[in-house]
């Protein structure tokens, strides 16, 4: 009690100082052009290393220090991508992969959210369900592949099932953990205002759980992209994973690297979409990242 109050007093004095420093920061950042420059400068800084490396390798091969056969230079990778795009192959492969990830992610999120919510909200269900789920989680998900193929066939269903399994666990754990971690003190505020069960869920639990849920979704999506590759390794005739295997078997490293780059772009883009879509709901968050980002 004493400790927490001391900390609070400390936080108070700190927050009392904050507006001053913030004002000072505003005064410094007052001319709009440097502020805008800085906003674009930050992502540019992150691009410096990969672009530099690419440029270096391009020059290295161009100068003849390497034949670039196993590690193709960027122009060759770009040419491969353009070639695939021109023939319509690329769209077909990307569509196949994105569809699989989308379906698997959707299924995994729905199942993980529902079961996670039940486990988090209802103690008896948690005691019944959670040990089994945790045991299943301990199985490396790729180990399911032979079984899924036997059960669901070699085509789309088994692939989507594998991705869904990969997405399910982080979402389940995230939702359950978030519900269990909801501050009892905040729930008490709801009780004092005599919220009904549904109102308590809508007005207290959902907003309190949302930040952790978004993180769980993003982790789940990352795993979804991971598992789509595994799924497409097990006998696919289209998809970015197929491009990888095909490139290996036919000795086309440029095609492999091209597929890898497209994976990176797609993964980053979808992650960013989740971030953008949920940002308005999380504006209230006192996130460290935002603080340092604003500074």
């Amino acid at each position, binding site marked *: 009690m004493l400790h927490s*109050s001391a900390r*609070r007093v400390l936080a*108070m004095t700190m*927050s009392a100082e904050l507006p001053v420093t913030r004002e000072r920061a505003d005064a410094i950042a007052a001319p709009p052009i440097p502020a805008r420059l800085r906003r674009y400068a930050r992502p540019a800084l992150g691009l410096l290393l990969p672009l530099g490396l690419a440029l270096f390798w391009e020059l290295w091969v161009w100068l003849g220090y390497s034949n670039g056969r196993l590690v193709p230079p960027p122009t060759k990778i770009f040419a491969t991508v353009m070639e695939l795009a021109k023939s319509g192959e690329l769209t077909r492969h990307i569509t196949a992969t994105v569809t699989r990830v989308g379906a698997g992610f959707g299924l995994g999120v729905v199942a993980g959210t529902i079961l996670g919510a039940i486990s988090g909200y209802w103690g008896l269900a948690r005691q019944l369900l959670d040990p089994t789920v945790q045991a299943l989680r301990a199985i490396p998900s790729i180990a399911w592949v032979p079984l899924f193929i036997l059960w669901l066939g070699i085509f789309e269903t088994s692939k989507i099932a594998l991705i869904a399994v990969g997405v399910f666990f982080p979402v389940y754990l995230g939702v359950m953990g978030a519900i269990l971690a909801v501050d009892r003190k905040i729930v*008490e*505020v709801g009780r*004092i205002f*005599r919220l009904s069960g549904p109102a308590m869920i809508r007005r207290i639990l959902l907003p309190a759980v949302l930040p952790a849920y978004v993180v769980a979704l993003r982790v789940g999506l990352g795993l979804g992209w991971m598992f789509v590759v595994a799924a497409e390794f097990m006998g696919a005739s289209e998809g970015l994973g197929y491009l990888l295997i095909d490139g290996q078997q036919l000795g086309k490293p440029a095609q492999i690297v091209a597929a890898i780059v497209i994976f990176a772009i797609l993964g980053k883009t979808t992650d960013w979409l989740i971030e953008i879509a949920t940002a308005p709901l999380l504006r*209230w968050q006192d996130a460290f990242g935002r603080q340092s980002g604003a500074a």
Partner: protein
Amino acid sequence: MLALDKVGKTYPNGVHALERFSARIKPGEIVAIIGGSGCGKSTLLRAIAGLDRASTGTVTLDDAAITAPHAKIGIIFQEPRLLPWLSVADNIGFGLSDLPADIRREKVDRALARVGLADKAKAWPRELSGGQAQRVAIARALVPQPEVLLLDEPFSALDAFTRRDLQDHLLDLWKDTRPTLILVTHDVDEAVVLADRVLVMRPRPGRLFEVININLARPRDRASPLFENFKRHVLTALDRSLDRNIPDADPKSMAGEAMWW
């Protein structure tokens, strides 16, 4: 009239937190409950709020037994407990969701102005200082116009200046509708500034030890000799409450109206 009749609480882990606490508190009265740690002050307050049920005895407000949170009883905790995802205005209006939006907004605006935070309506709770946040919490509790407002060490986390400021502010707000205030505190100064009656508790198990009436006109001057005198009364009672050689007062005489010694 809020009546506490032999309220006792034993927690499931066997801790005997509160024993046979009785008091009758008139509408509009300000009562401070003071005592060392572990004397069941907060337990008592939570029982009155309906957050935890008493193991024995009853709490009744105007003859209605309190076993769950009640519309006419509000509470302010040690921490502001604002909902971080709601703006300051939405936090204040949290308990008014039954009302139409325009009436709610009007009440919230008035409450914001009343606690001097009209310019913070759209701010997030994290942007407030500790004192401001606690003022929002006070506004949130007062906006539904409770008949009884419970305060659980509401200013103990604040610095001395802010605490004094909020004590005066609380009295000012109290004058609007004159709800019953029951204030748990461990600050003698705060008890004597605010209360009509100070209930001194003694620990293990928590029980009522002594009742001290503060017959001082408001506003009270913290520097006056009379004020000092009352503070000394309370301090002496607190010291005596911790002395195991002094027996409890006769429970029968404690059940009735205030004693004067």
